[in-house]
């Protein structure tokens, strides 16, 4: 039988993923959004932690302004196991009936959420990029489908809690400060039989430097780079992002880049998630080589460059000034673990 130290008042629960004492940033992002939504519905927000030895994490979470932190703790939950976590969460959810339950769309979150939703026989919206709450307490989630080309609004009118997994990077992390909130400890009813698989090994891997066509990140340079010695700016940025280097025709003709790196109608077609074009004006036959990137960024000193009509983010400026700062900032982010 699970036990709880106090009554949980919050109606919006945010599952904040933690692993080995480190919080996934998406958990904080969702907290921020949840607190904003809660104002409309006049609800309280609880951050939910599952695992073991969570005291200091719980304290940390309170500082972000959440009304409650629900701590579901047990040594058996120290390592994530989906069925065990589902069981641990089910009882308090059924007992305290939150209206909304949010999880981050991480590898763990996207594994836990559907199983939990099926256990609770409730609705789950996946990979949301936006959330809206009506004064009736109905959540509308905006979810992408068809490779991101179409959006849909999804609701869960008949069952509770209304569940959603939220994409990382969509909402902002709230500012921490001195806040008051309370910690509620839940002792779950977990036994060794609930652990249905065992993680033998965890391996961190650098994303392998693959060829241009397989690359997730492509940084391409164009005529605007100007000279062979300056080509290293492009290479440095690609390296910092663990990406591949691409080029338009002029750098290849000039010998700054290799023929095999040429992207375009006559070169290679690439499908990176992120494409950054530096010193590229944006002529058609280069752009033709790009297919369905998630984010296209262009850096060019000419504000009238055609490429600014074909990208998501544009920076007008001198790449020699922008790139070094950019590389430094990227390295600072990459160097840190999950907060």
């Amino acid at each position: 039988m699970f036990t709880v130290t106090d009554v949980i008042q919050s109606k919006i629960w945010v599952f904040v993923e933690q692993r080995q004492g480190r919080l996934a940033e998406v958990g904080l992002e969702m907290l921020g959004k949840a607190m904003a939504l809660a104002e409309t519905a006049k609800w309280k927000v609880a951050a939910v932690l599952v695992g073991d030895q969570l005291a200091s994490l719980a304290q940390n979470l309170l500082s972000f302004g959440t009304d409650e932190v629900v701590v579901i703790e047990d040594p058996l939950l120290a390592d994530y196991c989906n069925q065990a976590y589902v069981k641990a969460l089910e009882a308090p959810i059924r007992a305290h009936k939150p209206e909304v339950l949010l999880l981050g769309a991480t590898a763990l979150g996207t594994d836990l959420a559907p199983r939990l939703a099926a256990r609770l026989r409730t609705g789950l919206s996946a990979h949301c990029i936006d959330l809206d709450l009506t004064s009736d307490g109905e959540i509308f989630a905006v979810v992408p489908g068809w490779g991101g080309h179409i959006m849909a609004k999804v609701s869960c009118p008949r069952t509770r809690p209304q569940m959603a997994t939220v994409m990382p990077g969509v909402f902002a992390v709230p500012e921490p400060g001195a806040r008051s909130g309370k910690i509620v400890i839940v002792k779950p009813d977990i036994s060794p039989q609930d652990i249905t698989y065992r993680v033998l090994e965890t391996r961190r891997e650098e994303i392998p430097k693959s060829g241009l066509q397989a690359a997730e990140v492509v940084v391409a340079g164009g005529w605007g780079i100007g000279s062979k010695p300056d080509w290293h700016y492009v290479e440095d940025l690609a390296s910092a992002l663990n990406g591949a280097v691409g080029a338009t025709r002029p750098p290849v003709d000039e010998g700054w880049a290799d023929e095999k790196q040429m992207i375009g109608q006559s070169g290679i077609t690439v499908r990176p998630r992120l494409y950054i074009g530096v010193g590229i004006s944006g002529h058609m036959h280069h752009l033709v080589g790009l297919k369905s990137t998630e984010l296209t960024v262009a850096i060019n000193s000419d504000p009238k460059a055609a490429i600014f009509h074909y990208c998501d983010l544009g920076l007008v400026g001198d790449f020699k000034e922008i790139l070094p700062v950019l590389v430094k900032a990227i390295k600072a982010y990459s160097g840190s673990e999950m907060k």
Partner: protein
Amino acid sequence: MDFKFSDREELLRKTVREYAEKEIPPYMETMEETGEFPTELLKSMGQMGILGVITSPEYGGTGMGHLARIIVLEELGRVCPAIPMALQVHHMCTYALGTWGNEDQKKKYLPPLAKGETMGAVAVTEPSGGSDVAGMQSAATLDGDKYILNGRKCFITNAHTADTWVVIARTSEGGKGLSAFIVEKGFPGAKVGRKENKVGLRGANTGELAFNNCEVPKKNLLGNEGDGMTIAIRDIVECGRPGMASVALGILCAVMEQAVKFANERTLYGKSITKLQAIQWYLAEILSDLEISRLLTYRVGWMLDQKMSPHAESALSKQFACEAAARSARKAIEIHGSYGIMKEYPVQRLLRDALVTIPAGGTAEIAKLVLARQAMTTYG
């Protein structure tokens, strides 16, 4: 009349398309530069069942028939026309063996050809002329248990990659004087000669075969003495011409796709060139050529599968489709403007490929003789 493809044929098209799109492009640049056929592909093509598509399963083939063969060649040609050019001649070899070979010959030669362990070629054309089959000079004389073969064959596709050749040569005087032989590359006196440097379909290598007192075992006579003319003509009509037409279909498909792709991306006068009527007419004309060529060619495949003789239909489809391919490739180049004549863009290669299909495997003039005869017989 049912103009729909069966589920099986749709699946066939889909899988060959996937195979072609993935496996062939890495070789294309080298093929264009060197004119060499990528023999490394033979193994996977054998595993796919493409090489034995008209060979009976009894001898290691998939025996899916002539319409299936057309689909296979068309899809390969859409990616790289040189590939089905080489394969269609390989099929001509397997077809000759499968149709006129005896049990021992079929058991010996067909399985490795189906698997891609060996490649096939057919040698009819000589310097004296390809259109004048009866005028050929190569001769074979019986000497005990073997034939001694002398002569030269030119413009032979797969000359440098094939191991098994079906060679037509004269064994006696007169119209019924030609015979067909199965010649292995390694037979004493058989030689592979010069390599041609073609302007298109580079990668289907074309060259010369020379026979200098070449010893061909008697048991390698294909059919009977005197069958050579029938074998050559029927192999061409039933296998060679639809094969060439299929290569042209592949070119037409690629031409259509390239034309639409470029037209969609190109802007002039502030708008897409697809809004310009001249471009629209070109696209309409290319589509017409593509659809007509398809119907003509598929019909030949269907007729062959029904065991009908497609003499005139075969000539018509080959002649029409190949000319249509060249004509449409030219229009596609016009759509591309100056980009069209740049080697970076594929359309110029497609035009060169199409030009090569016109005389290969039967000139337009010979085809028209056949058609004229047909017109006079049917409507006279």
